[in-house]
Structures are given as C-alpha cells and as structure tokens.
C-alpha cells in the first residue's frame, strides 16, 4: 500500500481535528490489494454521522459515498477504501470494525492518543472467516499481529 507523506499528514491532521470524536473519510486510488498493490492518490474527509457515541463510532453518510463514487469515476480512480480514527485506542481494528468491514476495501486506522495522531495501521479483510490482515505501508513492514 502506498500513501504519500503529504496525504498521510492530511489524514493525521483530520483525525486530530476531530478528536475526541472519531474522524472518517474516503480513500481514492488505484489497485486492488491483490493483483496490484493499493496506491492512495487522494483522500476526502467525511462527516461522522453515526447516531451514537462519536467518540468510539463512525458512520460515513451514504450521500457522501455516492458523491465519492462519482468523483472517483470522473477522475479515473476508485474508492479503494476508508479511513477512521481510534481516539485514545490503538490502531487495531475492533470487533465492531470487523463486523462492519467489506472484503476488498483498504481500511486505514489512525490511533489518536490524547489528541495527537499516533500509529497509522492498514488492514484488509481476508479469508473465509473474515480476518483483518495487516497491509504493508509504503514498503515498510506492518505491525506484528
């Protein structure tokens, strides 16, 4: 998975701005994580429209997703996944994340301990049981499971 320093900074900034609430947004890019590696080319911060506690839940509004899909088509990209933050929690997918994940999407999770963006993890759902696997970030080894 490739993510430029500038995009990573923008993602981190968004996650810090939303602290103590969860930030979320769409990842545009190319690749499918299988035949060709993912490459993030653009990201779009989304409003968090979860009906519950925004400190530990997020929901990307479907209308936002529709616009993101339109933009992806217009710019010859795909919506390759989504990112969100874990305020004061590690950058690991929660059981709730797993239950709501889709095969084939890239998921980036940014830990935000005490309002400062920390570890950024990359994951995708694999296998029959739907297990999150680490995705290598910029050629560096992912965190051990």
């Amino acid at each position: 998975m490739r993510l430029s320093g500038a995009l990573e900074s923008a993602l981190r900034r968004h996650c810090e701005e939303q602290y103590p609430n969860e930030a979320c947004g769409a990842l545009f890019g190319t690749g499918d994580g299988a035949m060709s590696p993912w490459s993030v080319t653009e990201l779009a911060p989304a409003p968090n429209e979860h009906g519950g506690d925004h400190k530990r839940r997020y929901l990307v509004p479907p209308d936002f997703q529709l616009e993101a899909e339109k933009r992806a088509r217009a710019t010859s990209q795909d919506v390759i996944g989504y990112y969100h933050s874990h305020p004061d929690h590690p950058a690991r997918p929660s059981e709730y994340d797993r239950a709501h994940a889709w095969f084939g999407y890239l998921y980036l999770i940014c830990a935000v301990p005490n309002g400062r963006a920390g570890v950024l993890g990359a994951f995708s759902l694999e296998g029959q049981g739907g297990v999150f696997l680490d995705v290598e970030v910029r050629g560096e080894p992912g965190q051990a499971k």
Partner: protein
Amino acid sequence: MPVSILIPTPLRRYVGGAKSVQVTAQTVEGAMAALARESPDLRQQLFDGAGKVRGFVNLYLGDSNVRDLAPTLDAVAVKDGDVLTIVPAIAGGAPEAALSRDEILRYSRHLIMPEVTLEGQKRLKGAKVLCIGAGGLGSPLTLYLAAAGVGRLGLVDFDTVDLTNIQRQILYSTSDVGRPKLEAAKERLTQLNPDIEIVPHGLHLASWNAMDLFQGYDIVADGTDNFPTRYLVNDACVLLGKPNVYASIFRFEGQVSVFDAKRGPCYRCLFPEPPPAGLAPSCAEGGVLGVLPGIVGSFQALEVLKLILGTGEPLVGRLVMFDALDFKFRELPVRKNPGCAVCGRAPTITAPVDYEAFCQVRGLEPAAGDKTVPTITVEDLHGRLQAGESFNLLDVREPHEYQIVRIPGAAQFPLSQLPVRLHELDSARTYTLHCHRDTRSLQAYQLMRRAGFGRLQVLAGGVDAWAERIDRSLPRY
C-alpha cells in the same frame, strides 16, 4: 429497460471485476434480481434470507436514495439509461470497553440495576472525567468516581498535603502530609480501583493550557475554591461544549449544579461577574465543617455518574443549595442568559481570558484613590517592637480565632464589629491591622480609610506569618 448498475470496489470480485453491469428491468427490484442472478455470492452479500436488500446496503437511483423514494424496491420504476449505484454502508469504531471477570464481580451491585446494566458499566469504563482540585470536594468526588469504575480520571492540583487539609480531605492520610497531593491521590485511588487510569496533571490551570487539557475529557467537575479558576473552567467548558459539574462549599452551606451550555445555562448566566475581591472569603479564611465537602462532593460525583449513564434528571438549569445547619435543601431555577458573555447569542468571550485580572485577586488591593496599601512585614514589626517602638496593633479576626493564637499586644477589633466600634479609635493615630492572613485586614483597611483614618498599615501575612516566621512555638491554623 436497460439500466446500468455501478458496482463498488468490494463487490467487483463477484462480477468478474466489472465496475458496472448492464441489466434489463422495469423496477429497481427487477434490476437487483437480475444482478443477483449473475452471482450467488453477490446475492448473499446484498440480500437477506427473505430476499430484502440488507440494511447496510444503500441503493441510489441517480442521486436519490431508493429508500427515500418508496417503501419497497418493486414500487420504484426504472427507465431507459437509469444508473443504479450500490453503496455499502461504512461504519466502525474503536473497541468497546470490555469488562473482565473480576470487574463484573466488582461492579455487580451496579450491573443488576436496570438503570446501569452491563452497557452502563461499559460506558463508565469508557468515560473520561477531569476533576479540578483534589481537595475537600475532590476527595469524595474522585473516591466515588474511581470506585464506580470511571475509566479515566484526570486530576488537576499543584498543592502538597497540609495538616490543615486532613480534617476534610479524606483522600489523604496523616502520613501524606508534605507529599504532593497528586502523588498521594494516585496511590490511594489506584489502591481503591486498580482497573482504572488515574492521570495526574500537576499544573496551575490557566487560560493558555485549559483548552488543550479539557479536550481529552468528556466531563469536567469543578471543585475549586477560587473565582479565577471557576470562571476559567466555565468558559473553557462552554467553548468546548463539555458539561461542567460544579460544586462549592462555605462553612455550613454547599451548592451544586450542572452547567452544560449545550442545553442549559452556564456559570456566567448565573454570575456574570465575580464578587469584588475580598468579599468572598475562602475556606482558609471562613472555615468549613469537615463533613460538608463530603456531602457536596458526593452530590457532584452523583451528577457525573448520571451524565455518563444518561439516566435520571441532571441538575441542568437548577442550582441546589444545601444548608447543613438547618438541614434544608433549596432549589433555584437558573435560566440561560441570552446576553451571556460566553454562551449567549452574541458572545464576547471566544477564548479563555486572563482571569486573575478579571477577578482582581492579586493579593493586597489598594482602596480607591490609593496607589498601594501600606504594608509592614512580620520581621519588620518584630524588629521594631524589640527596639522598643510601640504599635497600635488591631486584630480584626473573630474572638474564637483570637483564642487559638494571637500576637502579643494586639487589640481585638473583629471586622464584624468594626463599623460600630470605630468611635473607640482615634483617626489621627497610626494603626497596624492584621487578621489570619490578609483578606479581612484589607477589608478593615478599606472601611477605616473611608471613615477618615489616614495612617494605616496592614501586617502582610497576618498572624499566620507571625507564627510561621517569628514565633514558631505558636500554633498555626
């Protein structure tokens, strides 16, 4: 009708990697059924056992969510060239606080209450509460919040434990005297509940650090005894949209309220301006019955827990006053002030301000017309007494304080009697005023200045400074 269905990335694997699929149908339901025929796996992703589109899948016909168009898919007709977009719901979030076996046992008296339950206890574990002040109110507050399982408790204080604290600050033991309060508090609270996180903030809360500090917490509980901090906590909470569970105590009376500007008044709606300096004595000046902060701080803990659990009626828009001597509660409605400087319609305060100046608590405040209050140090007074100089020393404390400790030769003129006893004094003479520390001697100074006394000075630090620095055999209180 031929329509195209746009396939999002995760579902393309079921249609041979295609970004869109062309189908022929009359309705949205027909189009989706045609798509489902392409792949049984895709059918499973999109439809439930009864053949309904799953709740976490949104379908858009053009720019309209099909759910908004009609209650069922077969009622939505499609026409030639329509575009259907499949939008999979994207949700998730940080892990929920889970309870261990031991925690379930520990909180069992909570868990069996329908107002708390396992869900509520998890909320408590996930909650972050900042307690300002680890003193009389902060003691029962933090002890009960820790015992109740509030997951993260922040404590702000920069004092050390003093022997005069122990009479009411039950967070500390006699052996803690001299230790930093936060060090002793963390030790005690961790012993009480090792499953929670105690975060000490050993700092002086100020306009430049309050916003950053509060950011990391859900609820702020103000248990301070001074006006600059009280206004600062209020303003920062309003600006950040956080509830401020407020309590204060004095002698035999306590006050509690919840200031949550999102749905009610703030502290400034109730008190737009602080009282003039010196008019509001602190516990150190006025005293407090030891058990009172225990009661009022427990009320404060109760309101914090209710806010976290979202149960009951919080004290929003109500100020409860408790008179311990008469054992009476009074409830005062507090209305949101549309003209409030911080939470009103056109706020003038948009960032924390310099509260020390706002509240005029810079210590010795000169009377109107005076540039400074003339003071004398205890060392100077002592030296000149030793040299044989004579002073007219007026002790303006109350008689029961005079019984605890006094400076030799001081005449008793309690502040409360001073206005009616001024005629006993000679305005042409020089008087040196003192109280316990400074507050009342300053009030006496201003009163006498207005009455025409021109030659006055205040003993800086009062009898307490005398006992601390001149005669160490004297008791301090």
